[in-house]
């Protein structure tokens, strides 16, 4: 059996430890423009933007370890992450190539484990369905490929 893959960050992450199933995209994510579920009744973290997020269209980000290159446009994403997280619909952790400051500040006040600047591109190494443990304090992530689970 293959060993788990460990990626190391240049620095300490935000928050503590979280583990769970990974949801991976190669596209930048915007909560304000992509997560239309916040306007649905009941509220959800469902992706509704077909044009910019075709690979995540219809997926729900709640309670997932979300792996995406960075955030994109719109400072209101802060409000929406916070609104979802306070209802238990936030991501379990965020792993980025480079975290957008809007997302970093949200993670700081919500204590969402968040990590970036890893020694390899997490969006290329991790696949959706892999099991990922984020240890933000140590600045590492541990990946168990789904074929090894």
């Amino acid at each position, binding site marked *: 059996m293959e060993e788990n893959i460990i990626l190391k960050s*240049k*620095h*300490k*992450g*935000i928050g503590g430890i979280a583990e769970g199933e990974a949801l991976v995209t*190669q*596209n*930048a994510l*915007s909560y*304000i*423009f*992509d*997560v*239309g579920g*916040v*306007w649905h009744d009941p*509220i959800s973290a469902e992706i*509704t*933007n*077909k*044009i*910019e997020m075709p690979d995540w269209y219809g997926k729900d980000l709640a309670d997932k370890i979300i792996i995406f*290159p*960075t*955030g*994109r*446009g*719109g*400072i*209101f*994403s*802060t*409000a*929406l992450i*916070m*609104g*979802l*997280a*306070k209802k238990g619909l936030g991501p379990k952790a965020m792993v980025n*190539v*480079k*975290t*957008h*400051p*809007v997302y*970093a*500040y*949200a993670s*700081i*006040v919500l204590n969402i484990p*968040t990590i970036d600047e890893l020694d390899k591109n997490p969006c290329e190494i991790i696949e959706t369905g892999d099991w990922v443990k984020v240890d933000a304090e140590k600045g590492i992530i541990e990946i168990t490929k789904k074929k090894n689970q």
Partner: protein
Amino acid sequence: MFAGAYGESYRGAMEILVKMGEYSSAERMVPISWADLTTFSGRWGGHGDSPDNDLYHFLRDFEDLSLKENTKFKCPMTIVDMSKDQQRNERMKKLGAKLVAPAGASSPHDLFPWPLFGQHASPGATNGTTFFNSMLGVRANSEGPIGVHMAALTGRTPEYGYHLDKNRRGKVLVEVKTKLKNYIDWAVLGFYISRKLSTHYWDVPVLTGIEPQTITSDDVMSLCASMNHPGSITHFLIEGISPEAPTIAEAFHGKRPKEKFSVGVEEMKKIYDLYAPSGNKPDIVTVRFPLTVERLYEVARLVEGKKIHKDVSFAVNLTVYARMVAERFGLRKILESAGILLGDRQGQVMWNGKIIDPWVDARREGIKTMITDSLKDCNGARNQDIEVALLPSLEKIIKTAINGRIEV
């Protein structure tokens, strides 16, 4: 402040800033000349079941603590005039905030005061931040309301990203190989670049091929707005226009670009095609990019003596100055006689006799098609599962509103 010697509100704010500084490998804090919380002063109000409720209360808790401790914002701070919430206005005044008018809340048209070249600042509006960095040479990151509030309170921000020289230099060369005919074309150009660099927005693009004498301030603001949709370009340079890019060599600090691409007719068409209308009947027509005085006169000229189609809702947003001109020189009357709604704040339209925000209400109100001049709308309102289409000129948008048929 971090040790708590000046009270809990300063300590709490500094704790957040220090965590951000550690995460972004900042070596120190820098004093800022100005902060702006205009964009988060109640777009959705933070009331009832609004999704921004929790952030609104998070910031209110900070305000309460500051009031209790009698602490003040340590740098000049602007916030939108919440005339419907006088109590909040008074609270913010007590904390040392200056108040500004609500129109143009997320655009640089109406922001006051402007920071100056080389100053560190914490602007609130996404496109305002891009405008200040790229056109004025201000040093700022796009951080959102939490970062801005904490920076305003302490008067400091962690020195990372665009506060540092090394991150302000050009990285990507963009050759513009097409003539841009109006502000919507400029938005399309920005959108194309923003999309292309969306996963590495920090690689500062440098635009070349633009004749400095032909670009207007409206064009620049339109470009800055779309640089953040769908990507997040907080800083870019235009050769011969941006203060940090008098020449290509200076824009790149003498280094070679790591990437190059060009934008011509084909690339522009790709974006127009992405948001081309598929039907022919509009429900809502809106000129969402705030009307400057120049465009206000253009809209008035196009609608004077005409009527908006009875089945179409048509709304425009005005900058504070354009609103004053509209009142004083009779343009408001021309627009309203034609049946145009002049929204009180950005994003409002009239639908079935009530004022709504399509970004939030379109789905539940049964709106199917919206025509706009704004790529931000294309991004934002599509989230409501409605068709949002971009038309290439103000003339076509207004013809559509008058005829009740989409003009392509």
